[in-house]
């Protein structure tokens, strides 16, 4: 916990209101506001040692060893020398301290860098350049273009007209679009006048420091007048000034009190399920330790009573039996302490760190187009990636690229868009080699628009009336706005802007040729662009007219009415008068809706079009049906009159208008249908298929509409035509929702008992319920909308919902709010004993990313906010399969192998002491030499197991992806569980018995080859420790399935190290230096030359691994696991089979509407209301303004990012680690 955080909390309690007087440092200093210097570092050179040690000893493992150390100093108890604990403890502490120190030095460095940035402060009417840290509340500072905002400022004046400034807030909220702030006119009038600014003595009275980025309240008193201040007037620290030459601001909050810093709250610290299991196991181990010590203490009591008392002649004792037993208990606590391994936690951290680096280094998760490698932002969650059961995915930007392409169409019963082979008539797959249609005849064509079917352009050139009508409709019936660019600086500015700030590309800027379209929905943009390329170029619009260029001829249509789109109508129409004076209504909309309103004469065409629509829908394309109608002039004027009356009616206006619309949109003539592809990201369908094979359930949580979501569900294979049923829950009352859920469940599984699925699991008194998985025949899908979800997530119904949802193969929740996303994740976390992963790209996914066990951010799409709060990030959804199936699986496998082996080696080591106790009068005599005890965990066995957990792979990446089923054992926690732990304990028991009793029997009452005693204590110690080291090495070799050079080095090196160090420690030289510490002098030489000893070691090692090998081979033969099978196959085939291509299935079986249109209501009004029309381009800033976002027409970042081309729009912006990120790491590492 950083200390300034505490300060802030205290200050916030004190400060109720903030009073600032501009240019009056003396006055302001009376309030003791924080200055602008920030401190994120934790230590300074003097406090480092005590503070860091204090923090480290708060960890239970370290504290435990400290207590052991204290015990060891008590002579009566001390069964081991102090250094056996001190050496590992110091090593562990110093490694951690070094890491903390490096982190803190980096923090110091970044603090210093930030604090020493220069800024112009207005002091005594003069601008002086000073460091950021010297800025104080009440100062007036000048910012220049592209500078970071120094502190939270009240904007006083700016270089731009109307006192506007543009800021980028990417660091603050992750949004990359520019925002506009405007100062008060009173202050703005001061402009650049330093004199006026210097004498400015306004007083600000505002809220105390807080962390709300979107709110600010305060007043400015100036010239006896009070002006209210809101968020529009405030520039926050962390923003960057853009497109503004300069601005002046008054410092309101500085340093730690700025909203940015106040927002750097502690992010929740995630732990993996293995961590949680470890906590339980450590408790168990403590129990085991206590139990062993109690047994041995009792044994000691009995022994002292019976044998020890008689042995008094040779071994005098003073204490009574009970006291001796008591002391023995503590002595054995010291000796057996190795069951709770100190190096365990450190090693786990190292392993996770290593595996995180592998993720960062993986070229297969590097996205070349955006130059984004994958990033493990949290290095403590790796093995959890191998246990994911549920994936919650966002749709837009995650599954899809958010790019719409005009892909196919059907005009007058003829389908266009497919490419056929010339002679055989076979349909060809479109690849990069396929030649696209040449649009060069059209100077206004968008060069990036690609279409492959040449017959359509032929049809246009032949001037077929249907085809012309089709594109004319597309060019007229929309709410898109066009921006005609003139030659000269304006265009250059825009292009410069575009290039300089690639981050602002996500706006609806589409800068091609001289024509820029701003579309409210990407679908519309795609349609209008298609029309443009086929010769029907939408040029401009005014509230009354639409100007299009038809095959090179400019024509202006009079726009009479826009019958706007809404969710119920699912269609939009325009009524226009052609230059010839003909009145027409053009309509586009959902097939189901339009078909009801067609003229009966279209029946035949409808059938043909329906076939095409089915085909399009089957391919997952979004379809719209186009129709037109010629209108009688008289009828229209009468209708227009009624329309006007209705639109000013006070009552039931909506209904009346709807009726009118309904009336006129009748008996229309069908033209055809369009098919737009909502471009999925590469490999999404395949990834989903792979994840499904790995039994990972994917739930799509999207803010999009039901149709859109469903459509994507089909196109990425989440929903399939072959599914037995896809349930749609879209009800309006809790009862209905409950009924629909229940119906769905009963249909899936008619014989469900109501409460069988709840399994109470008692943990510490309370009984959390777990919902068991229920198996269902067949495949089902569930689509639920946000409204129903709100009911379904209520406490009474959540189990019903969860139970139904979990029976389905696929769940799609649409129209959900960010909060609901998190709620769904929480629901699954709460009742399912499963690991969840949330993946998303936008700010609306942050809540679910934070809620899930693992959060994954798609980087480079829509700001950085999702990435900033994620644990892992990469550029493409398809990398998820590699992250989970390869890295996750490996990490999990490695961690589990590590833990199993680690416990094995430590338990085996420790249990030998336990057996020996029965032969040494329970006197807490160690079996091994103290040097060996010290070095066993640190030197002899540390590296091999580390090598295993950094390099091991049972099968390589190719096979892991080939057989996603390999992932399933991880979900079931099969590799490390309580059961596996118990097996470890039993295995260790067996091994330790062998390691003790084989040398025991081999040396019992016998002599060595030179006639001297066979079983002196030192030789026996050396023999057992050699047996132990060799055995654990052999066992490791058996566990290790991937012997790289490093592993060879580590294993053989450690074994060699054992002998080298043993011989070294038993040399004369060391003995002479400290006879009492190196009393084993000569033992190695005299012992390891005995053939007997080596025969014993070989026998012990063999006896220890024989049952393991036999058991493994046996189970591999009788019931091979999936791993065994794949490994066998791998051995047979050497190389992974080429990955089968997955041809897309075309489904024509059932009728399904492919209608989906991401359009919101209300834009029609805007278009006709004049509000959207920009002000005349008088200055640079306004020009930008109109190009970017006109005040009245503000496409949201998400829906507007269409591109008419099949390319991704967002080359990854180069984002330096922002200060917010830095702060985050500070907080992360200060756990």
């Amino acid at each position, binding site marked *: 916990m950083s200390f300034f955080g505490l300060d802030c909390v205290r200050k916030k309690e004190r400060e109720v209101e903030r009073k600032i007087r501009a240019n009056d440092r003396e006055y302001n200093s009376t309030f003791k506001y924080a200055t602008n210097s920030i401190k994120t570092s934790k230590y300074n050179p003097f406090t480092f040692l005590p503070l860091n040690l204090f923090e480290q000893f708060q960890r239970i493992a370290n504290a435990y060893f400290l207590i052991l150390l204290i015990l060891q100093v008590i*002579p009566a108890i001390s*069964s081991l020398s102090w250094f056996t604990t001190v050496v590992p403890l110091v090593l562990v502490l110093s490694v951690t301290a070094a890491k903390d120190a490096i982190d803190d030095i980096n923090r110091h460095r970044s603090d210093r860098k930030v604090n020493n940035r220069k800024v112009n402060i207005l002091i005594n009417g003069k601008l002086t350049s000073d460091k950021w840290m010297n800025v104080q509340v009440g100062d007036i500072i000048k910012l220049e273009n592209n500078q970071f905002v120094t502190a939270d400022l009240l904007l006083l004046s700016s270089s731009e007209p109307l006192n506007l400034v543009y800021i980028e807030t990417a660091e603050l909220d992750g949004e990359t679009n520019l925002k506009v702030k405007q100062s008060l006119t009173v202050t703005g009038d001061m402009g650049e006048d330093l004199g006026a600014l210097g004498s400015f003595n306004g007083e600000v009275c505002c809220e105390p420091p807080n962390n709300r980025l979107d709110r600010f309240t305060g007043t400015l008193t100036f010239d006896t007048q009070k002006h209210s201040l809101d968020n529009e007037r405030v520039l926050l620290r962390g923003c960057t000034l853009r497109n503004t030459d300069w601005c002046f601001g008054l410092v309101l909050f500085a340093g730690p009190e700025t909203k940015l810093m106040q927002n750097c709250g502690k992010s929740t610290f995630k732990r993996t399920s293995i961590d949680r299991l470890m906590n339980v196991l450590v408790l168990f181990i403590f129990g085991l330790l206590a139990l062993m010590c109690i047994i041995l203490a009792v044994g000691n009591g009995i022994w002292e009573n019976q*044998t020890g008392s*008689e*042995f008094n002649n*040779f*071994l*005098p004792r003073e204490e009574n039996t009970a006291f001796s037993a008591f002391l023995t208990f503590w002595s054995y606590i010291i000796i057996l302490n190795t069951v709770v391994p100190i190096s365990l936690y450190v090693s786990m951290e190292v392993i996770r760190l290593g595996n995180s680096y592998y993720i960062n*280094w993986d*070229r*297969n998760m590097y996205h070349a187009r955006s130059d984004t*490698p994958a990033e493990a932002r949290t290095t403590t969650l790796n093995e959890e990636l191998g246990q994911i059961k549920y994936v919650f995915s966002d749709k837009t930007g995650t599954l899809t690229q958010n790019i719409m392409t005009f*892909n196919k169409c059907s005009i007058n019963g003829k389908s266009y868009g497919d490419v056929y082979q010339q002679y055989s008539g076979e349909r060809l*797959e*479109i690849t990069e080699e396929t030649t696209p249609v040449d649009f060069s005849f059209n100077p206004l064509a968008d060069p990036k628009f690609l279409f492959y079917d040449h017959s359509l352009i032929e049809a246009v050139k032949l001037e077929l009336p249907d085809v012309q009508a089709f594109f004319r409709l597309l060019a007229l019936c929309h709410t898109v706005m066009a921006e005609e660019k003139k030659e000269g600086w304006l265009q250059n500015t825009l292009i410069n802007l575009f*290039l300089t700030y690639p981050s602002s590309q996500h706006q609806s800027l589409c800068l091609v040729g001289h024509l820029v379209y701003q579309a409210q929905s990407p679908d519309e943009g795609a349609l209008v662009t298609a029309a443009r390329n086929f010769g029907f170029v939408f040029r401009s619009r005014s509230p009354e007219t639409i100007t299009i260029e038809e095959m090179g001829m400019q024509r202006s249509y009079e726009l009479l009415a826009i019958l706007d789109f809404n969710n119920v109508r699912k269609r939009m129409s325009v009524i226009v008068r052609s230059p010839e004076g003909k009145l027409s209504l053009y309509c586009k909309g959902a097939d189901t809706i339009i078909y009801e309103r067609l003229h009966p004469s279209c029946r035949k065409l409808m059938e043909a079009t329906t076939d095409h629509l089915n085909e399009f829908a089957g391919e997952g394309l979004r379809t719209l049906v186009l129709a037109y109608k010629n209108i009688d002039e008289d009828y229209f004027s009468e209708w227009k009159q009624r329309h006007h009356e209705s639109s000013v009616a006070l009552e039931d206006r909506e209904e009346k208008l709807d009726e009118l619309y309904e009336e006129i949109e009748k008996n229309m003539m069908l033209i055809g249908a369009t098919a737009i592809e909502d471009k999925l990201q*590469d490999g999404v369908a395949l990834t989903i298929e792979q994840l499904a094979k790995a039994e990972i359930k994917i739930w799509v949580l999207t803010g999009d509409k039901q149709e859109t979501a469903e459509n994507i569900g089909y196109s990425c294979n989440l929903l399939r035509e072959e599914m037995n049923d896809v349930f749609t829950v879209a009800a309006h009352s809790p009862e209905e929702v409950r009924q629909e859920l229940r119906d769905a469940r009963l249909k899936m599984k008619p014989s469900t008992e109501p409460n069988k699925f709840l399994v109470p699991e008692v943990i510490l008194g309370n009984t959390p319920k777990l919902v068991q998985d229920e198996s269902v025949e067949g495949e089902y899908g569930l689509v639920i909308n946000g409204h129903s979800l709100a009911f379904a997530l209520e406490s009474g119904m959540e189990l019903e919902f969860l139970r139904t949802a979990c029976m389905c193969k696929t769940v799609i929740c649409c129209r959900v709010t960010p909060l609901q996303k998190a709620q769904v994740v929480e629901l699954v976390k709460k009742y399912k004993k499963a690991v969840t992963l949330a993946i998303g790209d936008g700010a609306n996914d942050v809540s679910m990313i934070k809620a899930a066990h693992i959060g994954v951010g798609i980087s480079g799409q829509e700001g950085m906010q999702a990435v900033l709060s994620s644990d892992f990030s990469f550029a493409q959804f398809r990398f998820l399969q590699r992250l989970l199936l390869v890295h996750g699986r490996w990490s999990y496998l490695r961690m589990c192998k590590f833990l199993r082996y680690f416990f094995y080696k430590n338990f085996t080591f420790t249990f030998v002491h336990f057996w020996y106790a029965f032969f*040494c*009068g329970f*006197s807490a005599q160690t079996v091994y030499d103290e040097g060996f005890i010290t070095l066993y965990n640190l030197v002899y066995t540390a590296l091999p197991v580390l090598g295993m957990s950094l390099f091991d792979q049972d099968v*390589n990446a190719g096979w892991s992806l080939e057989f996603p089923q390999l992932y399933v054992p991880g979900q079931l926690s099969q590799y490390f569980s309580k059961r596996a732990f118990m097996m470890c304990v039993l295995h260790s028991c067996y091994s330790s018995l062998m390691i003790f009793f*084989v040398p025991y*029997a*081999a*040396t*019992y*009452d*016998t*002599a060595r*080859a030179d*006639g001297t*005693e*066979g079983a*002196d*204590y030192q030789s026996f110690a050396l023999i057992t420790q050699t047996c132990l080291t060799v055995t654990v090495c052999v066992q490791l070799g058996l566990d290790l*399935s*991937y*012997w790289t050079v490093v592993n060879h080095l580590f294993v053989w090196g450690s074994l060699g190290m054992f002998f080298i160090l043993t011989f070294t420690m038993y040399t*004369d030289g060391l*003995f*002479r230096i400290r*006879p*009492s510490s190196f009393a084993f002098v*000569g033992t190695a030489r005299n012992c390891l030359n*005995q*053939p007997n000893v080596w*025969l014993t070691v070989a026998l012990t090692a063999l*006896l220890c691994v024989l049952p393991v*090998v*036999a058991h493994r*081979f046996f189970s591999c*033969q*009788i019931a*091979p696991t999936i791993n065994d*099978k*794949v490994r*066998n196959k791998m051995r047979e085939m050497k190389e992974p089979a080429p*990955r089968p291509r*997955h041809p*897309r299935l075309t489904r024509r079986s059932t009728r399904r509407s492919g209608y989906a249109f991401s359009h919101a209501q209300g834009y029609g009004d805007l278009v006709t209301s004049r509000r959207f029309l920009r002000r005349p381009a008088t200055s640079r800033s306004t020009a930008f303004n109109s190009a970017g976002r006109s005040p009245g027409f503000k496409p949201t970042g998400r829906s507007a990012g269409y591109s008419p081309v099949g390319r991704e729009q967002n080359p990854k912006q180069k984002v330096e680690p922002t200060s917010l990120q830095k702060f985050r790491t500070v907080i992360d590492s200060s756990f």
Partner: protein
Amino acid sequence: MMASSYNAKEEDGHHSGSAGLGGAAIRSRKPDNTAFKQQRLPAWQPILTAGTVLPAFFVIGLIFIPIGIGLFVTSNNIKEFEIDYTGTDMSSPCFNCSQSFSWNSSTPCKCVLPFSLEQPFESNVFMYYGLSNFYQNHRRYVKSRDDSQLNGDERSLKEPSKECEPYRSSENKPIAPCGAIANSMFNDTLDLFYIDPNGTKTQIPLIKKGIAWWTDKHVKFRNPGNNPNLTTVFIDTAKPVNWRKPVYELDTDSENNGFINEDFIVWMRTAALPTFRKLYRIIQKKNNMTPTLPRGNYTLEVTYNYPVRSFEGRKRMILSTISWMGGKNPFLGIAYITVGSICFFLGVVLLFIHHKYGNRNNSSDIPN
């Protein structure tokens, strides 16, 4: 329609970075293509297959059984004779000595035990004393010594380590050698006589040198100072309370006196288990013609000084020959034979299992 099929290789192949954006060439963040970073290090990937496991079992069986037989035969060829002279039985000649024991008695109690060897002992014979139920491995006992003192450190001689308590000082003088181990040194004297068939009693020469490890004798144990006159060296020290004579009178030979007395060194090398034997003397083979100990009758004369009755201990005298694998111990031979047989048997069983189940399972395809 664009075919979108994911292929990892394509991804890896080329890089079309964002250089050129904004004019500035940005260094690609593409990770290095090294085998280490891409986790493609060449590796040996052993798997437990029938082809490796079954032969291994048979080979281990085939190696272990002969070794076991060899060990067993070797162990059986070792001649060993053991006689318990504790004297707990009334019938035992040492019964009286064992009953009337006191540490400070000046007149040593002697007892004579006759025995006969059925077979001659051909090669060098090693003579051991064996103790049972003697906890030389008790922690407090093991600790109770001062290695510095024994290594001739003069400061430790004057001021022995605290570990030696309560045998650290007596009569205000430091004890040399201090500690419980030294204090409880075995002090029976064993003498061996051969009784000729004609009744003549010949003492068998017992060699007392070379019974300790070379490293112990020459490195670990040293007399303090360079003064060959040990009496003056140990002048300010007291003898261990249980000892009859001070440490500098353990032997007359200056090479075997004081701390480097081999009997003392042997005793100080504590045993790992409560039952142990320690080398007492060596009977050297005289020539190739006569056995070292011919078959016949012998007597063992014991100067009974060492009390073990109080803790139900046992004292034994053992005569044994030695092979390359040490003294008699059938365990290793039997264990090797058993383990070898088990391996072989397991090999057969697993072979059977492999034939019955293995092929079926391994050839079956992995469900996709």
